[in-house]
């Protein structure tokens, strides 16, 4: 990871020689990217329930709530990556076509994209613009979503004598979600703007994050995690509710043994990292 970051950083400094409007750099000479509209969130903090599955002893627990501080500003796309944006990556041969057959307006969020697709787009877009773009972490997403962040239905603390109580509680909570009955993606802006100025959060398009699914065992005294295991073949997906999807899945489905509520659509938005001067210079020197 640090290696690839340096590589991207060296591209960034090349781009930085262009006076302004980094996101408007031409790539392959075929299209100028429209300036990506972003929101810069000032430093702040949130308290939110961690994604994943948590055990204490042998029993599932309610997900721990944690206060997380963001010391630096976070720059994040105002809108989800659109059908037209993503089509450029496909045209450039860097992304595969979305698994989407419905007729969707070009300015609607791209859907039918997997974690792998979203990552490919971030790589291409970074190269194309000379900036470092990446998927948000789950906590960044939660911070940006503010009042639109709902989190998951991990259920209450397990009843040691009756594990089914937790399953039923979670099932009922998901069933009672007041979801939009229309899953067809809409033009950007349809679902409005949140208090931080981000559009279309928690509408009918769920968003990939860079956070892996984790199963953690909490310390017996309740302070911290005793041990944990990441499964980065599965990533956290955020939106109307929190869910977890395998990296290659582009259309969430429920059924069979999986009794959870699937997302209507899978899409994404990106975060732009501004590398510090030290990193930029190191990158320039190729170190």
């Amino acid at each position, binding site marked *: 990871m640090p290696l690839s970051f340096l590589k991207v950083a060296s591209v960034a400094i090349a781009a930085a020689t262009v006076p302004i409007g980094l996101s408007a750099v031409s790539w392959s000479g075929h299209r100028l990217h429209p300036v990506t509209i972003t929101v810069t969130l000032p430093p702040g903090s949130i308290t939110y329930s961690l994604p994943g599955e948590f055990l204490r*002893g042998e029993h599932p627990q309610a997900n721990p709530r944690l206060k997380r501080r963001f010391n630096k500003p976070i720059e994040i796309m105002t809108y989800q990556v659109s059908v037209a944006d993503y089509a450029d990556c496909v045209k450039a041969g860097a992304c595969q076509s979305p698994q989407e*057959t419905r007729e969707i307006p070009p300015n609607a969020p791209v859907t039918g994209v997997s974690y792998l697709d979203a990552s490919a787009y971030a790589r291409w877009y970074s190269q194309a613009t000379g900036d470092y773009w990446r998927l948000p972490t789950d906590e960044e997403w939660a911070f940006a979503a503010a009042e639109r962040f709902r989190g998951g239905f991990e259920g209450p603390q397990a009843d040691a004598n009756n*594990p089914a109580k937790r399953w039923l509680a979670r099932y009922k909570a998901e069933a009672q979600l007041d979801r939009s009955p229309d899953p067809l993606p809409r033009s950007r802006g349809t679902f409005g703007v949140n208090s931080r100025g981000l559009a279309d959060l928690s509408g009918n398009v769920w968003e990939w994050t860079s956070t892996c699914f984790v199963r953690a065992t909490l310390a017996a005294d309740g302070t911290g995690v005793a041990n944990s*295991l990441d499964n980065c073949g599965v990533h956290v997906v955020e939106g109307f509710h929190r869910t977890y999807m395998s990296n290659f899945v582009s259309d969430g*489905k429920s*059924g069979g043994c999986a009794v959870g509520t699937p997302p209507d659509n899978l899409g994404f938005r990106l975060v732009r990292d501004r590398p510090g001067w030290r990193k930029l210079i190191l990158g320039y020197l190729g170190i």
Partner: protein
Amino acid sequence: MFTRREALFGAAIGAAAVAAMPAFSATFAPADIGALAREKVKLVAPPFVHPHDQVAKGGPKIVEFTMTIEEKPVVIDADGTTLNAMTYNGSVPGPLMVVHQDDYVELTLINPDTNTLAHNIDFHAATGALGGGELTLVNPGEQVTLRFKATRSGTFVYHCAPGGSMIPWHVVSGMSGAIMVLPRDGLKDDKGKPVKYDRIFYIGENDFYIPRDENGNFKSYETAGDGYDDMMKVMRGLIPTHVVFNGKVGSLTGDNAMKANVGETVLIVHSQANRDTRPHLIGGHGDYVWEEGKFANTPAKDLETWFIRGGSAGAALYTFLQPGVYAYVNHNLIEAVELGATAHFMVEGEWNDDLMTQVEAPKAIATN
């Protein structure tokens, strides 16, 4: 392409044929039919079933049902795909009727003039006249009353069968349901001992064949007739676009999941009027299963999955032993997950550690 006028024209011939037949219902009716008690039953939409006695009280009677046919667009999946459905009593499947062996079923079938097509009903439980289909063809604006004797016990499909290609078209547009004819002394296990159920659910499985446009998206049509040619082409490929329970993907999940308690015995009646299926209760079993649905046969015991032949209805009796969320699926899992044939049971009660326990929660693999 199949206009109301044509429907009426086709029906006029049918009506003439009926008129030419001897009025046999008068000739062969038992003399004492007028002496039989009558009971009027109000049907309820699946998965629920109208109140009924499991063991018959008194002698055979005439059980009166009324069903109104409704042609209407219905949404069959979460993407809003629309089927120009044809329904018995407004639901897909039509309601489950329950009577006892040797009772008479007396059905009044109404085809309101707001409909555009001629319809009828073929009861697999009935004897003669194409299951009653020959005697029940009604045009928009007509009604008919049929009486038949329920001579055999079991679960049986009924469906629309108005002739030729109309038959499969009406069936895969939603026109099927089931009737359960209980033995007068109720259900019995493999040893002949009476068994009872605390709850009954009726699940009708449907295969739908929705045409797609050139981009692969499902098409919708103003009327059923407008979509007839396209749908026929999909039907002839024999690969359904949807396989669903109770008319819609997700009709029996979430808020509509079926509910039961630990210790309760549930009878699940499952019909499929057109195509084979294989119900399976994930995490449970079939304690006693009448795969073919006919109660004169000994039920099979302890089944994991049961086979429902296309054009039949079966019944499975199960006592829930463990709480939780159960999935009830067509165990062709592609059909269950991708095409829609999944239902859920929410079962409340006390967990039985003896039946199952997680000895050790998931953790990193021990290295030595």
